[in-house]
């Protein structure tokens, strides 16, 4: 009896356990055992149809009635695009030629200077008949004068109406087929690929040169504000984004928090600058942010970003949807330092390349239109979007980025391992036999070109050299020295003067150095510029000092691209200046290279020991060139690149360039 009861309770316990097991496990087992039934919430996916193989293709061959082609469509009335409204047949030959309508009546100083700047540019032509683009300036915002219908209007065909400031003028005539370049056009009125979107320039924007970018360092300073917001009165206010509340919304105003500082600043000091996208006027803030290196965050812009046709703004700005403020804020806070670094640098590059002066904006506009005409030989996107930019990387030189000295690394390519020596023989005209021998002795020398530029007849005999020697009969002009001769077949040029003296190992070593810095000039003799307080202008000195900003082109390595740039991009006035005052040519070449690289040249050891004092250039030369550039691009360096074991206390047998150490 007892045992039975015990057994009974045991059975009870057992069955209770079983019941629990069934209850707990049964469901899961069921789920495993039974095929799943469609349930709301379970991931379904698009069904795999059993008869998917039988499905018909969307386009049956032969079904398309392609034979019945209607004749080409006429352009939609009113609206224009590039193909239908621009006649490229007028632009044969040397690319874009621009005629500018002369101003009528009294014009403002700005207007006059812009006209002068276009007339001095390489695009300009005198005759409206020979021009492929006719430019109508509609500028004078302050005087309120409006241009009237010009003479050669022809329904606006091949015309560009340039409006730097939003014109108060009502449209006095039908724009017809004319392209419009205006500041911050609204997205709805803008015709992509036809119109050009300009930046919204402030009234006092410098005409030429322009202020450099404000960024003094690559990475943001620790502790700098994350976000700056535009203020009503034109300043900027930095906002603390530590709190989760949205900083740009009126709703957050009630709790400013202790970290929120109110400051009035002309240029924002923050990592990101928030810019409202509704009013085109906000576009002027956009430029401010760009200059300050503050990454613009545009909230649903209703206006077209400047030069959006060619500039990849995703590399320099963030266009975000204003309706998702918290997500945007979170994204900014979480952005990787690498991305921030890249965006910041890009703002500076773009500002400096295309926006810092009115002249740059106009030239960029013309370059955009020229690219459309050029078609396949236009600037590739890379040239527009990485330093030095499309205004300084001429697509007439090449459309392959790897041909330019500045893109070697990006392209994973390198310059050729050989150079061409270009020896200029000016008066009195002695063939530089010793120099030719020294240069030809270099293992890297591919060819020697002698540019005969003096009144004496060409000598008939030239020394025998291991490399080909070509004699070019020059035009007796100094600027000939930098003409892109088609006979130059290497990337590197060693520019020499007949009077220079160099040894073979000096040439060899300097060329090796150049291969590490192919975008810079590598020279032997140096000079410097300085600010002359007494005269209130720039001064020039060839004295030996602890620093230098120029190398003399009478003995220097550089990339052959600079010949193209010198000949085809400089305003004519500057080249004339170089011809008239020959000593200026050094300065001019150094200015060009510095303007492109934003870096100083490089000095290699060597050059004549007891150096003949190079005649100082006409004192005004440097100032004239600086005025034409609109700024001073030259930068100083305090170093010289020597061989690794240069004058080290080690056996001379170990040294590769021992002859460089001779006193």
């Amino acid at each position, binding site marked *: 009896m007892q045992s039975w009861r015990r057994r009974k309770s045991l059975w009870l316990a057992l069955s209770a356990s079983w019941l629990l097991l069934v209850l707990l496990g049964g469901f899961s087992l069921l789920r495993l055992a039974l095929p799943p039934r469609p349930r709301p919430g379970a991931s379904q996916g698009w069904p795999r149809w059993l008869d998917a193989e039988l499905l018909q293709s969307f386009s049956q061959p032969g079904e398309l009635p392609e034979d019945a082609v209607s004749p080409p469509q006429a352009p939609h009335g009113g609206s224009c695009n590039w193909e239908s409204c621009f006649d490229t047949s007028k632009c044969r030959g040397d690319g874009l030629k621009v005629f500018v309508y002369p101003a009528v009546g009294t014009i403002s100083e700005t207007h006059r200077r812009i006209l002068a700047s276009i007339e001095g540019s390489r695009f300009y032509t005198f005759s409206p008949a020979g021009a492929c683009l006719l430019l109508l300036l509609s500028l004078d915002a302050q005087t309120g004068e409006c241009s009237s219908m010009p003479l050669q209007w022809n329904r606006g065909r091949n015309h560009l109406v340039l409006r730097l400031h939003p014109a108060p003028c009502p449209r006095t005539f039908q724009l017809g087929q004319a392209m419009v370049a205006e500041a911050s056009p609204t997205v709805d009125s803008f015709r992509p690929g036809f119109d050009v979107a300009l930046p919204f320039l402030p009234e006092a924007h410098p005409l030429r040169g322009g202020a450099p970018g404000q960024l003094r360092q690559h990475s943001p300073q620790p502790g700098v504000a994350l976000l700056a917001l535009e203020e009503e009165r034109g300043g900027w206010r930095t906002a603390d984004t530590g709190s989760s509340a949205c900083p740009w919304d009126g709703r957050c105003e009630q709790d400013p928090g202790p970290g929120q500082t109110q400051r009035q600043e002309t240029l924002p000091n923050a990592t990101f600058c928030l810019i409202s996208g509704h009013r085109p006027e906000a576009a002027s803030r956009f430029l401010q942010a760009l200059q300050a290196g503050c990454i613009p965050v545009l909230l649903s812009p209703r206006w077209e970003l400047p030069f959006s046709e060619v500039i990849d703004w995703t590399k320099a700005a963030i266009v975000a949807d204003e309706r998702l403020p918290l997500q945007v804020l979170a994204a900014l806070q979480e952005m990787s330092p690498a991305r921030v670094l890249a965006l910041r640098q890009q703002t500076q590059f773009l500002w400096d390349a295309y926006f810092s002066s009115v002249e740059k904006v106009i030239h960029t506009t013309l370059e955009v239109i020229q690219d459309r005409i050029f078609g396949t030989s236009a600037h590739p996107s890379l040239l527009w979007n990485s330093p030095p930019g499309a205004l300084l990387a001429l697509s007439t030189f090449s459309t392959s980025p790897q041909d330019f000295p500045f893109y070697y690394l990006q392209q994973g390519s390198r310059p050729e391992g050989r150079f061409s020596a270009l020896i200029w023989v000016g008066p009195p005209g002695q063939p530089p036999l010793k120099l030719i021998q020294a240069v030809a002795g270099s293992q890297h020398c591919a060819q020697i070109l002698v540019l005969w530029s003096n009144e004496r007849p060409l000598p008939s005999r030239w020394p025998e050299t291991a490399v080909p020697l070509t004699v070019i009969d020059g035009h007796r002009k100094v600027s000939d020295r930098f003409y892109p001769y088609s006979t130059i077949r290497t990337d590197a040029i060693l520019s020499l003067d007949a009077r220079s003296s160099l040894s073979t190992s000096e040439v060899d070593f300097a060329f090796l150095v150049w291969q590490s810095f192919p975008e810079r000039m590598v020279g032997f003799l140096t000079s410097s510029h300085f600010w002359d307080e007494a005269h209130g202008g720039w001064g020039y000195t060839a004295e030996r000092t602890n620093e230098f900003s120029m190398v003399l082109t009478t003995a220097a390595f550089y990339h052959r691209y600079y010949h193209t740039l010198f000949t085809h991009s400089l305003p004519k006035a500057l080249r004339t200046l170089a011809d008239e005052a020959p000593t200026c040519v050094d300065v001019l070449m150094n200015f060009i290279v510095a303007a492109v690289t934003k870096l100083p040249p490089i000095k290699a050891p060597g050059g004549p020991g007891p150096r003949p004092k190079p005649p100082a250039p006409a004192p005004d030369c440097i100032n004239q060139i600086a005025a034409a550039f609109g700024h001073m691009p030259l930068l100083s360096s305090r170093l010289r690149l020597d061989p690794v074991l*240069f004058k080290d206390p080690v056996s001379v047998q170990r040294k*590769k360039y021992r002859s460089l150490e001779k006193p």
Partner: protein
Amino acid sequence: MCASVKCNIRGPALIPRMKTKHRIYYITLFSIVLLGLIATGMFQFWPHSIESSNDWNVEKRSIRDVPVVRLPADSPIPERGDLSCRMHTCFDVYRCGFNPKNKIKVYIYALKKYVDDFGVSVSNTISREYNELLMAISDSDYYTDDINRACLFVPSIDVLNQNTLRIKETAQAMAQLSRWDRGTNHLLFNMLPGGPPDYNTALDVPRDRALLAGGGFSTWTYRQGYDVSIPVYSPLSAEVDLPEKGPGPRQYFLLSSQVGLHPEYREDLEALQVKHGESVLVLDKCTNLSEGVLSVRKRCHKHQVFDYPQVLQEATFCVVLRGARLGQAVLSDVLQAGCVPVVIADSYILPFSEVLDWKRASVVVPEEKMSDVYSILQSIPQRQIEEMQRQARWFWEAYFQSIKAIALATLQIINDRIYPYAAISYEEWNDPPAVKWGSVSNPLFLPLIPPQSQGFTAIVLTYDRVESLFRVITEVSKVPSLSKLLVVWNNQNKNPPEDSLWPKIRVPLKVVRTAENKLSNRFFPYDEIETEAVLAIDDDIIMLTSDELQFGYEVWREFPDRLVGYPGRLHLWDHEMNKWKYESEWTNEVSMVLTGAAFYHKYFNYLYTYKMPGDIKNWVDAHMNCEDIAMNFLVANVTGKAVIKVTPRKKFKCPECTAIDGLSLDQTHMVERSECINKFASVFGTMPLKVVEHRADPVLYKDDFPEKLKSFPNIGSL
């Protein structure tokens, strides 16, 4: 669970009083129950990985079984597409606010068959391609089956080809979709828009605010930044396998393969052929093919028969002329063949033109310039042509090849608009993999000379050599541009000396204590570093003069993206051993500088700590060696540039000169360093170090010039 455990605890107390025979029986029974319970419990809480696999959920059904929906004749019709639609006006971005991973979620409506009042179907239920397209979306990360969390809706109504559907009724079918809401956030895919006679360039089905991914947009119908221009898929892509043909000159310079061209165009093309002879080939459809030969796969010129699309591989340039529609499937075939398309279709919006740079892969010629096409093409340099051929093939592989590629690229474009801060870059869209590999994108690409006033932060890594450390601090503090000194105290067993004992210097001195004695602590991006320039210096480098350090800083300013250091080293290829070798002798070349004394940008600290490839960081910490070599590799790899060695060689107190008494130790050290180079080169997959033969000296170094007039006179003296 808990209860069951308790009853099991009580169990054993009962058992001894029972008969042995039963006891075994009960114990077994209880154990089974207990095990069962544990197993069930575990199963309950185990992540159900089996369930998420597709096979469990995907339905196996026939298309004939899809539900039929009757559309009354008077059911509402959406308005025509609104041409002014933009993302910020017509798109409801709030629906996309749920997704933390910056990825839109796409919902696909279930497939239905729509019939009108008379039971006549509105369209083909679904085409093979649209089925594939929806399947691709469904298999992608974008897909969600939760209609409430979706940001984008894709109807399963197939409108790929306008000719296969009834316009009004299709629109009515759209309008009754459950979340239609005037088409907001709905995405339609259409490849063949318009119908005879005037062939509109966008789908004629009224669709209100819906986005249109269309093949064949013109500038007048395309809503920039709202619609997506897509390719017209060529079913041949799936049928024919054209292996990639390397770039280079081909038999024909220019080829036209399209059939059914407008007579006017054909005349122009034939005129070109007459003018330029053999190098131009104009094909047409074949008229006298024998039975059973697929006419789609053949093209003829006079009596010559060519295989299509293989013949495209024989041409450098291939004409893509507009037909009745602007978008032509032949574009896809041409790209596949690596032939550069010559697009002659005024106002045509090329596929994915929002992100793809067509200038790199095609030539666009205005229709009125068709007669000049030959000379236009001839003016393109050969190298550019080859570049375009490669690019054309790459575009096909990445974005044209399959319906899936087209669908995913479309969704990616829309995704990038909604989360622009996470968007894919121009390079990622456009650069072929080979270019992406070969190129270097320097993180400090802006040419910029930092102002001298910023100064530098010296970071001294130390363990316990206090006396030597204090000497280093005193020496370094004499450098004019020093702005802060940071001591990284790497000893966890010993406290740093008391504040009063430290040398008094003119700049702030901070001591950072580390949690672990690791070499990588030297390269941590400490918040205390406020300057861009960092001087890493060992606690035993006492031989550098103030002039040398100051000059080093000046050099760094001119090369802020490089390592600028004092002792230089070299890597060499050992031909006998077939591996890299470390070299510290007096060589004419340098490829590394020791970070026992080196200036560099603080960004590299961030890279070293967070972006060092592979297991290098751990390897360095485990071996307590080679952190400097790792830094040299990292910087050279990311910038593609060489180091700058400054000033003449000195007798340095450095690992390979101090820790050694005998030659054998020295050799061990060199072997270890060589091993590091080989290890890192294999992790990087390449040898990034660059060898140079120069070093930086002051302009007037050792020149015949009065010493007192030199800026840095005290350089190089031992």
